[in-house]
């Protein structure tokens, strides 16, 4: 089978970092960081070249839409890769953040550097593989393997409780993904029954799964949502995340928040929702309520949080709750907003983690009670911090706003009468309660800014004299304010945040067809669910519109 340039570019973006990781592992420790940077840059360049020629921006097709090379023919496992708009955007986001994280680790990681950069490259590669995979097993390989490097990065380079944090993260996510694997195999088996051969192509599986009876779809959806909810993370399964973020090194936190958590929401977009529309419709309000609990609960925790990094971690839980709410509004507005928000949350939260990391490297504390008023000490850092915090709050004109607005708007119009053509069981009340989360977000993030950036200058005792020293290692001496390297990391992120804030339309236009395609089966299923169910949450608020339900 001839391999087209496009497929080659995708595989370069995946395999080149892995090859670089091997070179890093063998080569000298001194040059590890530069080799790693080169590896991620090539990966980003290959993916950008692919995106440049990507013909499917405005239709929901996959490209390249060819059959992958066979891997295990008997089991129907192939090497099929290809992107649609959503997965390409998320893969680009990951590839874009990788070099920034590598550069961001130059001063933070001083021991066992070869392993660190090697694992970081492998982590990036497996995230891109998960987004690129068009074979469900290949997706699972990428999705699951991200755990190995991330566990090691946290367990080796993390804070004082790193082993507990790494263990907890591994076990939570591993347990969850087992359910997901069972669900994938189950759909594969149903395909085997229907078609006589095993096949794990995601599109094929989707076609098989939507034909299943609704009770089967219910359980299928439940298995998927358990698997992905751990990764997102959704409310009751989120407890591993703040600890992991708190203990992870800065760059690990960035990739965890910006790319790995997106695997969870992407999994919902790619597997759970399109494969089991009946289950999705049945569990729509359930997931939405969990998402709203996540928003409110995490926001309240943020309010009393004095550890800056934990605060950002919990705000991540709240923001992704909003993203899930938008996704489960089950109309194109919400879904578009959710996908747009995935990308923008990646940018702004990643940048915030980087900012907190830079401040931590100077003061060795993340406690907002001990440090404050840094605008006087580090004006450049303070400007970036304010910008990214405002983006995270959702200030109009910055990127966070559009996603949040669309998610809430989608929830608002997800009503029973379905004037939009997409009926739903959510509605204004859901949007209003979730909207409170945005107010909370503004409050806790502005409080954080008020403490850290403005007010009287407070520096930890004895640290002020050493503020310019950084680590004892003189080769990583840090200036008082941001160095050129650190500014170079934050500037691309700032540009992206502002640009997407003012020019969201091209990206939204590109996402729209994908969102509609994913929701193709939902109007019908939600109607069915509403007709069938009289005991659903908030059913009493709903006007019965169909005759069948009256008959019952």
């Amino acid at each position, binding site marked *: 089978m001839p391999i087209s340039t496009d497929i080659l570019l995708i595989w370069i973006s995946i395999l080149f970092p892995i090859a670089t990781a091997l070179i890093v592992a063998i080569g000298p420790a001194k040059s590890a960081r530069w080799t790693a940077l080169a590896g991620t840059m090539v990966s980003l360049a290959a993916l950008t070249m692919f995106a440049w020629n990507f013909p499917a921006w405005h239709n929901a097709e996959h490209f390249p839409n060819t059959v992958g090379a066979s*891997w295990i023919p008997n089991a129907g496992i192939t090497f099929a890769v290809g992107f649609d708009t959503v997965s390409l955007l998320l893969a680009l986001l990951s590839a874009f953040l990788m070099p920034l994280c590598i550069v961001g680790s130059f001063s933070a990681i001083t021991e066992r550097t070869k392993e660190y950069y090697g694992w970081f490259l492998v982590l990036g590669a497996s995230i891109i593989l998960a987004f690129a995979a068009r074979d469900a097993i290949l997706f699972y390989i990428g999705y*699951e393997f991200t755990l190995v490097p991330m566990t090691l990065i946290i367990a080796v380079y993390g804070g004082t409780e790193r082993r507990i944090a790494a263990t907890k993260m*591994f076990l939570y996510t591993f347990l969850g993904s087992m359910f997901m694997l069972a669900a994938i*195999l189950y759909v*594969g088996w149903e395909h085997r029954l229907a078609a006589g051969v095993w096949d794990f192509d995601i599109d094929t599986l989707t076609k098989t799964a939507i034909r299943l009876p609704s009770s089967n779809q219910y359980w299928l959806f439940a298995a998927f949502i358990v698997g992905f909810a751990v990764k997102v993370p959704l409310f009751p399964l989120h407890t591993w995340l703040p600890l992991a973020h708190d203990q992870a090194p800065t760059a690990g936190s960035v990739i965890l928040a910006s790319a790995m958590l997106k695997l969870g929401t992407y999994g919902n977009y790619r597997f759970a929702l399109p494969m089991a529309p009946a289950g999705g419709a049945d569990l729509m309000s359930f997931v939405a309520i969990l998402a709203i609990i996540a928003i409110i609960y995490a926001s309240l925790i943020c309010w009393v949080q004095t550890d800056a990094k934990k605060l950002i971690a919990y705000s991540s839980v709240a923001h992704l709750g909003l993203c899930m709410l938008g996704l489960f509004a089950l109309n194109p507005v919400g879904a578009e907003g959710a996908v747009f928000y995935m990308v923008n949350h990646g940018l702004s939260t990643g940048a915030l983690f980087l900012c907190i990391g830079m401040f931590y490297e100077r003061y060795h504390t993340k406690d907002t009670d001990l440090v404050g008023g840094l605008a006087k000490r580090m004006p450049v850092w303070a400007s970036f911090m304010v910008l990214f915090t405002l983006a995270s709050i959702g200030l109009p004109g910055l990127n966070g706003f559009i996603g949040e607005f669309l998610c809430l708007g989608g929830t608002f119009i997800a009503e029973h009468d379905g004037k939009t053509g997409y009926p739903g069981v959510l509605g204004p009340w859901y949007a209003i309660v979730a909207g409170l989360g945005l107010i909370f977000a503004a409050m806790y993030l502005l409080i954080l800014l008020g403490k850290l950036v403005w007010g009287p200058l407070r520096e930890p005792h004895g640290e002020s004299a050493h503020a310019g020293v950084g680590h004892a290692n003189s080769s990583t001496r840090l200036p008082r304010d941001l160095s050129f390297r650190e500014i170079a990391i934050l500037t691309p992120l700032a540009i992206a945040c502002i640009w997407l804030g003012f020019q969201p339309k091209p990206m939204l236009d590109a996402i729209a067809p994908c969102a509609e395609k994913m929701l193709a089966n939902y109007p019908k299923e939600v109607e069915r669910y509403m007709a069938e169910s009289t005991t659903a949450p908030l059913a009493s608020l709903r006007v019965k519109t169909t005759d069948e339900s009256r008959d019952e």
Partner: protein
Amino acid sequence: MIDAMSPRLILLAPEMILFVAAVAVAIMGLSKNHSIRASLPFVTCAALIASIAAVPMTWTNENAHAANLLLPMLGRFVKPLLAGVGVLLVLLSVGSVDRRLEESVARGRIAFDPQRVVRGEFYAFFLLSVMGAMLLCNAQDLIWLFLAIELVSLPTYIMVAIGGSGNRNQEAAVKYFFLGAMSTAVFLYGFALLYGSTGSLQFLEIRNALAAQSAGSGIDTIAVIGVVLIILGLCFKITAVPMHFYAPDVYEGAPTHVTAFLAFVPKTAGFTALVLILTCVGWTGHTLIDSDGVRIPYMGLPTPIAAILWMIAILTMTLGNIGALLQSSVKRMLAYSSVAHSGYLILGLIAGATAGIEALYFYLLAYGVMTTASFAALAALERRGEEINSFADLAGLRLRHPVMAWMLAISAASLVGMPPFIGFFGKIYLFIAAFEADQFGLVVAAVLNSAVSGLYYLKLAIVPLVAPPSARSEEVTSVPSRWPFIAAVVCGVGTIVLPSIAGLLVDAARKSTQSAPIVSTASQSESPAGVVAGPDSITLKSQ
């Protein structure tokens, strides 16, 4: 000359090579010349490699079918598998057998005394045991099966005793021997009952007799009891519940390189024997799909046998995983992990021909490579001349022995089923086979068990890589021989590289597990249309 030999004899070529080598090794072990004694493991390796080469040359389609075997092509996959992993197991043992004695002789402290060396015997028994496991593939009757199984087991009892130095070895050997003898009695009794019910020792005739019984008034109770006893007896070989209790003690007490051997060779032999016996009975739970796409359940195995296998599978994986959770000794943990993996493998037995058996053998291959990797990493290290045993010995291993730490981590990742290591594909394939047999419940149980196993395998990866070194682990050094190190690296790399040719391996396993066609007409004529009582029913699905 070969043409003149009977096909059955030609098929034994690999075993003959191993037998000749076993005799040669036993004699060479008595040599006064140190370098000859040192060459024994490599002679053993050479013999195993030669036997691998002999398989494709002799095990041709015509020969195999002419030999009237139940699963004619089985040996083509299983024999190279045994010999291939055997080569790695030999490398593990280099330098361990007779180590003290050889050191004393080398220093001139004592004179060489042929009566005290056991290295020759060890490798001779090694080869004989592998040979016994290979002979199982050629079995066409119960007697052969019994003798081959005993040929696997008897040498292992001695290997446990003489493989290392220390009182624990002897204790483990005695335990292993007495419990093994009991299990032998159990399955021998089962053989007798099966013979009593069917009137034949030949597999093909037993199968036809059972098919006739099942087409008539159902399989005889005597035969069912016989098969159940055989399964229980063989559970000892595969370390499955309820005969698994010896495993932690024996695995811990045996020298590490022998433990690795016990974890693979007798297990493969036990599963091969079970495959042969159950092929005679037929498989359960298959759904055939007729032309309209309707599923017809097909019950081949009598319900008691199916139910017992079901219970054994669930209990084995659950108890194995729970047992492993509680261990502080690495070898005991790996012993329980080996029990748990047997539970997964029984999934393949329940799923049955042919998807289940091919998944079983593919998983055995994966299991052999990954479990040998972990034992090899342990065998490559020692503390004050003693074997590594507790997790405290491994803490912070990465600082002094980075490669072995990584190999332990890789084997743990593969054992837990983390993609993209070979263990993941083994599991996927087993689950697929279980789905084929409509065993959804078993898949759920196995998935949950895999999740539980994450708890202790994570420990096996994290402790060497991340934990701070302890006082005990500071004293850990490499063993003098570098071959266990090489074996660990080969296995570790194997778990990463083999998935890329997983398609080929699965294909080879599939080709080897086609069973002989059913010749009995009685069962076919009386069966409902589309449902044939026999092990090859799964092939009907593709029609």
